[in-house]
Every structure is written in C-alpha cells, then in structure tokens.
C-alpha cells in the first residue's frame, strides 16, 4: 500500500484542489483508493466530496485541569507549578484558563488538597464516509482544541485499515499547512509527499522549509507549481530549489478563475471536463501519472514514529 500526502508549507496554495483532482483521476482510472483529509482543524475536502457518513466517532484525547472551588483553599501552589500560564487569579479565586491548559496534570497531581479535577478532553469528531470517488476518512477538530497531531495519526490508522480491508493499494491524503505537529504526523509512513507551491517569495520560503522536513524524514517530494504564471522568475527559482533537493516538478498550473468556479460547483477540476477546464484537467492528469510513477518506486517508505 502506498500513501501519498499533499502538503504545501504555505497555506492556500491549492492542496485541496489538487488532492480532489487526483482523487477523481484515481477513481476514473479504476484505482482502488482510500481518501483522507488530514487538515483536521480546517478541513475542506468534504466540501467537494459530499460525503455520506457511515461511521461517526467522538475523538477524546488528553485532559484539562479544572479547580473545584468547594475544595480549593487558594494556597496558590497550582499557579506556582504551571509552566503554561494557565492558572488565573481573580479576586482571590484561582481558575484554569482551559484554552491555555496543556493537559500536563501537574497541578492535578500535586495539589495539596486534591482540589484540581482532571477530566478527559473531547477534541472533535471523526468519520468514515462514502463518496463518489471511494471511501473517505475525515474529521473535525472542535474549534480551539489541541492535539491535532494525535487526531491525524488516528485518521491515518483508520485509512490504512480501510484500505487493507477493501484491498486498496493507495491512500491519498490532503495535508495541512506549516511544518509542525500535524504535518509531521501526516508524513509518517508516506511513500511520497506532493508539494503544491505557488511562485511567490512566501510560497518558495515555506516550500523550502517543508521540503527540509521531508528530507529529514527521508520522504521524496514531488512538486506541483500552482499559479505558475504569477511570477515566471519565482517559478524558475522553485524549479532550481527542486532540482537542488532532488525533487521532481510534476506540473505547472496557471492562475485561473476556473479553480474557484469548480469549487463553487462542488466539483474536482478533473471531473465533468469542459472545453474551458480541459487544459487544466490535462495538466493535472499528466501530473498524477508522474506522481503515481514516483510513489511506485521501490524503497519509498518513510519512517517516523507517531507522536
């Protein structure tokens, strides 16, 4: 089974658009695939895929401290211990700022009068759904919650199990921006990362960082340049950065209003192709073919432990 993860570094470069286009192509070509949206705090792929939910589960991870005012003697030990500035003191009353609480439990375990409760934290919901392109594993983190790395790891396990069950040889994942916890978790075990990069100083800067992350974990990178005609010099620089890092550029898409229009129709760019969308769809099909060839190369297994 091969796992392909679409990433970008910078947000808003077109990860979801590209991932959905690849999903439609894989389906049209008869490849058995499981789709997965790993951008769990702001997931968007479901907007294009119109999922029919088959399984829905609450995601609980970690705990949050809470001070029981009936037991608290206001000794202040919790505030002294907290390394996350999450204990507030107002009018002589100590409370926990839940959004600041890191769930370490030190205040809970060391409160001299056991006044700090430590309930489990509900962080979101995850789903296994059917879509017109095949099964889809996705989630929604509750707004403001933590632990998106752990939820990402859980979704990947579910997607792999589903793929094994149905004999699929491909898991295609939409990733999240940045280079932190959720992205590291997304890349774990991937055969190939597809970086969607825009030819802007920010796009190149953030791509260089995420490519370094992939190199660190020995995951090969395919590069798709989006909005390539916005700045030809920057596009050339991205080619150079890619060549230097041994990454393959698998295609270039133009800056086009057709992308948003397909999104408004809730469609992938590679389905129900019109005369207008045909050039974009052809570029994406050629890119997908290269991506599949790269992912199929032997020895392409990343190795990261789940966080």
């Amino acid at each position: 089974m091969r796992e392909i993860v679409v990433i970008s570094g910078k947000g808003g470069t077109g990860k979801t658009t590209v991932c959905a286009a690849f999903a439609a192509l894989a389906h049209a070509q008869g490849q058995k695939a499981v789709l997965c949206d790993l951008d769990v705090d702001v997931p968007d792929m479901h907007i294009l895929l119109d999922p029919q939910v088959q399984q829905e589960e609450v995601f609980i991870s970690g705990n949050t401290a809470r001070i029981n005012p009936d037991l608290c003697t206001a000794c202040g030990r919790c505030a002294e211990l907290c390394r996350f500035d999450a204990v507030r003191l107002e009018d002589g009353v100590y409370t926990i700022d839940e959004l600041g609480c890191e769930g370490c439990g030190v205040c809970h375990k060391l409160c001299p009068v056991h006044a700090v409760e430590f309930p489990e934290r509900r962080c979101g919901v995850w789903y296994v759904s059917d879509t017109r392109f095949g099964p889809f594993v996705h989630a929604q983190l509750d707004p403001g919650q933590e632990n998106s790395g752990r939820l990402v790891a859980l979704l990947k396990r579910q997607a792999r199990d589903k793929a094994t069950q149905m004999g699929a040889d491909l898991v295609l994942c939409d990733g999240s921006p940045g280079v932190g916890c959720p992205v590291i978790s997304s890349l774990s075990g991937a055969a190939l990362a597809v970086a969607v990069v825009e030819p802007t100083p920010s796009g190149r800067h953030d791509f260089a960082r995420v490519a370094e992350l992939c190199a660190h974990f020995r995951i090969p990178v395919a590069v798709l340049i989006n909005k390539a005609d916005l700045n030809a010099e920057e596009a050339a620089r991205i080619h150079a950065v890619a060549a230097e890092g041994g990454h393959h550029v698998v295609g270039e898409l133009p800056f086009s209003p057709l992308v948003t229009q397909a999104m408004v129709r809730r469609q992938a760019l590679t389905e129900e192709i019109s005369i207008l969308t045909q050039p974009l769809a052809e570029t994406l099909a050629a890119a997908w073919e290269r991506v599949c060839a790269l992912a199929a190369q032997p020895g392409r297994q990343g190795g990261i432990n789940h966080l």
Partner: protein
Amino acid sequence: MRIVIASGKGGAGKTTVTACLAGQWERDLLLVDADVEAPNLHLLLHPSLAEPEPVYLEVPELVEEKCTGCGACRPMCSYGAIAMMGAKPMYFQDMCHGCSGCFEVCPEQALRVAQRELGALLLGSVSAGGKTMPFLMGRTRVGEAMTPPLLRAQERKLAELLAGHPSDVLMDAPPGVSCPAMTAARGADAVLLVAEPTPFGFYDFKLAHAAFAQLGRPVAVVMNRVGMEGNADCENELRAWCAGAKLPILAELPFQREAAHAYAHGLPPTEAQGATGQEWRQRIAELASRLREFAKGANNA
C-alpha cells in the same frame, strides 16, 4: 491596543492585510509575525533583522548516579515521554512538553535541565508608510513538532519590548483554529478575521469565528478577494452570515490579478504600481481607521 489578524483558512490574506496596514497605521506600531511555522511577513516588509536568538525548552536529563530507580517521575508525565527501562527511567526529550512535573517529584534531584531547541526569535526594524517600527518574528526549527512554547517565548519578548516602549501591536497569526492560532490570539484586544468568500474560505471562517469567540475578545471581519468571477452567491452568503452574527465587515478588498502579482513579487498590494496601489492604499487607510475605532469602542463597551 493589540490586534491579532487571523483567518482559519491558510492563504486567505492575513499577511497581506497585516503588511498593508503597517504602512497606513498612523500611530506608534510594533509588528509581530506569529505564524512561526511558515513566517512570511518579513518577505513583504523586508525588515532589517538582527541575529536569530535561539529559544529552548527545558527538558529532563537523567543524572544516573543519583537516580535510585524509584519511578516517581514516570506517572507524572502525561505525554509518554518517560519510560522505565529496566531499573532506570528513560526520557524521550522530543516528546516532552516542558511541564517540569518530573523535576518536582524526584526525591533525589536526579534530573538535570537539558535544552531542546524550539526555534528562534528575530528582532529588527522596518520602514513602512514613511515610519520606522520594531519588528518581531518567531521561526520554528524544522523538525520541531511543538509550536506553542515558541509562541509563549515570543509573547514574553513582546511584553519586554512593550514595557520599554508602549505602542499598538499588529500580530500576523498562524492559520487554523487549533493550539498555535489560539496561543497567538490569547493576548488580543481585538481579532480581525480575514475571510476569503469562497466555499472553502467561508467554511473555515465560520470555524475560526467559533474558535476565537471563545476568547471573549471582539471580532471584526475583512473580506479579501471580493469579485471573483462566478462567486457572487458565496460573497452574499458570507455578508448575510456576518450580519446575522453581528460581526462588522470593516472592509472588502478586491480580487485583482495586479494585487496577486504585487504579492508574488514581494510587495504588499498597497505598493503596487499605478491605480491598483492607489486603490489599495485608500481602502486600507479606511480599514485602519475603522479597525482602531472598533477595537477602542469594543473595549470600552
């Protein structure tokens, strides 16, 4: 007055709006880039920056000869970073959140403080709108999973800077609605949400609103990329939703190839050539004054 510019969806225009506002602010200002995983504000504003100051997290290291193998540290760790290997504990420093619980409970003081590099803070100054202002940015070390501890260090540095020289703060936040974005927004007096009125942008905007509303800070909206062909319905839906939620839309910024072109060449659209630059300067000057009024009014209410 501290205003955090956030969005939910990545690429909605947080950095563009922050960079544009910097040039039109008309009061003492300090700029902060809190998108420490993918910091970009410096690429539009070109500050002069001093050498990066590395930031570390204090993590435990075992002093073998003092450890009696009592195992008191193991149950203190909520992150699976301590395991008993035979008679002695092992510390997985990469998984440590720096809570110091293990240090607290070790009866033998058999732990010493080691450091894990989280990233760096960079300080500098920038010229915008004919004025020079201080600039602070964080940058995570590639390979480091945890963003909030670096953001907390950035917050401490910001407090130091403001103690020496009080001013308004514009902070470019990380995308998303989970811990990095929430950590950055904790000190805000007001949150400005940049909304892209596409189906993806609208969905993520609603999540961002739900997340930031929990902070109890006033939230206002700027719509970006308004006027995309074939997208009028979604724009109207967003306006109606904001009206229903009583969220003021302080400005609507146009979708223009010239603006994207300026950004792609490392310039905020307010610095674009000709009519585009002029139009953006005017709209952003209006946004800046409405935003100050909004933050002031909301905090007096």
